[in-house]
């Protein structure tokens, strides 16, 4: 009556071959999908640099410093576009930074859960409004009813109106990233402050904001990056289509990097293949990509810092 013990072979434990094959196949499919994003990045870099460099070889490099952006007459003054982009982002940040951070502080420190639950989705709705709509809003409401009301002698287009609209677009982004950072500040810090008699405002300003500062900086950098990349508002409300002058005046109309790309894309320059005007958009696109990429990497650094701390 000796009991026979059967040692299961390794073969038996590893399950059926069909099941393993299927498992490998599924994994390979998913891995392929994940690798696709890398292909996209490489394609962006190759497409932009390849076309931009071949354009740079075709032009006279002094054209990049012509003082005027007028692609049809071979004047590709990059500084004009860069100044326009900076003007838009500065105006947008003046609007969006206080509003976004203030809203974030209220939602994180003052609002009770019920208020939070109703107000946050409304902010998300604002985030979901397409940028063409804000462009139209800038052109038909902000410019005539706000900018032209305050300043005299302003045309139909201005950097100011476009910048305000871009600011409105970036408020939800700044508010949501900043609020995440403030919400992540540990309760113990707040309670310690309350314990020694601090008031709510003191806690908000002296405890929560310093503790969340890297997240707030990340939110602002992301906001700037978003403002630099915003296209449709500028294309509709900032005005310049054919050419633009270097300017620091926010009441002027003018061109930005994104606006220049859009107007080259829809302009009739497209039909004339031999012209140097249309391919200049690759070069401007490359600069835009490099600029926003650097800002996004910087903001990622800051986000990682506040994640690490708490």
């Amino acid at each position, binding site marked *: 009556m000796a009991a026979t013990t059967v040692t299961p072979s390794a073969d038996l434990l590893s*399950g059926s071959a069909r099941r393993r094959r299927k498992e490998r196949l599924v994994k390979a499919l*998913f891995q392929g999908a994940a690798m696709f994003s890398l292909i*996209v990045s490489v394609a962006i870099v190759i497409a932009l640099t390849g076309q931009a460099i071949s354009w740079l070889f075709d032009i006279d490099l002094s054209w990049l410093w012509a003082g005027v952006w007028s692609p049809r007459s071979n004047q590709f003054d990059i500084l004009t576009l860069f100044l326009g982009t900076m003007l838009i982002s500065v105006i947008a940040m003046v609007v969006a930074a206080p509003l976004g951070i203030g809203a974030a502080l*209220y939602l994180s420190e003052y609002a009770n859960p019920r208020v939070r639950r109703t107000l946050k989705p409304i902010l998300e709705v604002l985030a979901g409004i397409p940028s*063409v709509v804000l462009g139209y809003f800038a052109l038909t409401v902000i410019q005539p009813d706000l900018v032209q009301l305050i300043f005299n002698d302003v045309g139909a287009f201005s950097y100011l109106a476009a910048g305000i609209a871009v600011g*409105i677009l970036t408020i939800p982004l700044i508010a949501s990233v900043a609020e995440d950072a403030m919400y992540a500040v540990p309760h113990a810090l707040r309670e310690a402050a309350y314990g020694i008699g601090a008031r709510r405002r003191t806690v908000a300003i002296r405890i929560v904001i310093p503790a969340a500062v890297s997240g707030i900086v990340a939110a602002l950098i992301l906001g700037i990056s978003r403002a630099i990349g915003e296209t449709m508002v500028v294309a509709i409300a900032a005005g310049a289509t054919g050419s633009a002058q270097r300017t620091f005046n926010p009441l002027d109309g003018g061109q930005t990097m994104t606006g220049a790309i859009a107007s080259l894309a829809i302009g009739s320059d497209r039909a004339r293949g031999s012209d140097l005007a249309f391919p200049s958009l690759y070069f401007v696109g490359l600069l835009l990509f490099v600029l926003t990429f650097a800002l996004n990497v910087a903001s990622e650094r800051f986000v990682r810092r506040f994640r690490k701390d708490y």
Partner: protein
Amino acid sequence: MSTIAATESTRRTVELALRGRRIDVRGRAFQALLLLTLFISLGFLLVLLWTTWTTAQPVFTDRGWDFVRSDVSSLASRAGVWQGIVGSLILTGFVVFVALPLGVAAAIYLEEYARDTALNRLLIANIRNLAGVPSVVYGILGLVVFAQALRGISGGLSYISGGLTLAVLVIPIVILVTMESLRAVPASIREAAYGVGATRWEVVRSHVLPYAAPGVFTGAILSLARAFGETAPLLLVGAVTGYISTGGDRGLIDTLQGRFTALPTLIFSFSRQIGDDWRANAAAAILVLLVVILAVNAVAIVLRNRYERKW
């Protein structure tokens, strides 16, 4: 007697100091200021909706459904958005069939399969960066890759090029949102399934995905809304801003390889026209776009609030 009076006055002083002023005026003012910033932000939304509605109203009272059902025209009184609606729906179809499967699959790999290697960290960092690339840059990518290099398949400046460009644009967003919902499913669910002998794919398919589904759907819907309103990349791959003729008896392939327009593109071209009647048309087109996008957003938010699970 005097000692009692002294302690009494000390007690009162101490109590007063401890209690502070009954109403913290500056604190209240600060709170009101913060609330004001929130209301200003939301006020923009209200003013935007209100002005759009009042500007658009004449178009709808005069023409009603005719505006929605008409084709593009050079006459403001006859122009409509039908071609734009059809175009946007076709483009969104590409996002549904290309971006959602690819994005969800990539997220499953990164969250459920990938080990913490240098390559996988690079993949995730890369996806985060892609999500922040401006949409015009995707337009240039679409122009170079889909409209020029793959001209033979896509037909150049066509629905196929436009749709694939939008799909590539939203893939990083789909991946990030899906990863977040997968991460929220507790490890104990997976361990229970492994414990009874399920393979990794079986765990994902029958246990993780069902629990993560509401979050995945919400993210998917929001990405569709994003793609639906996107304009700049479409301009780069040749969305028609002027007159476009569609219809006729073209086959499906011919249509997809042909020139296209979309609802946001029409809004852009209407806004650039001069005159009050075009302005009203632009507002009316915006209203149609916003109705679609807000409805989609509302569905997503309701879905999330109803099915969101706290573990």
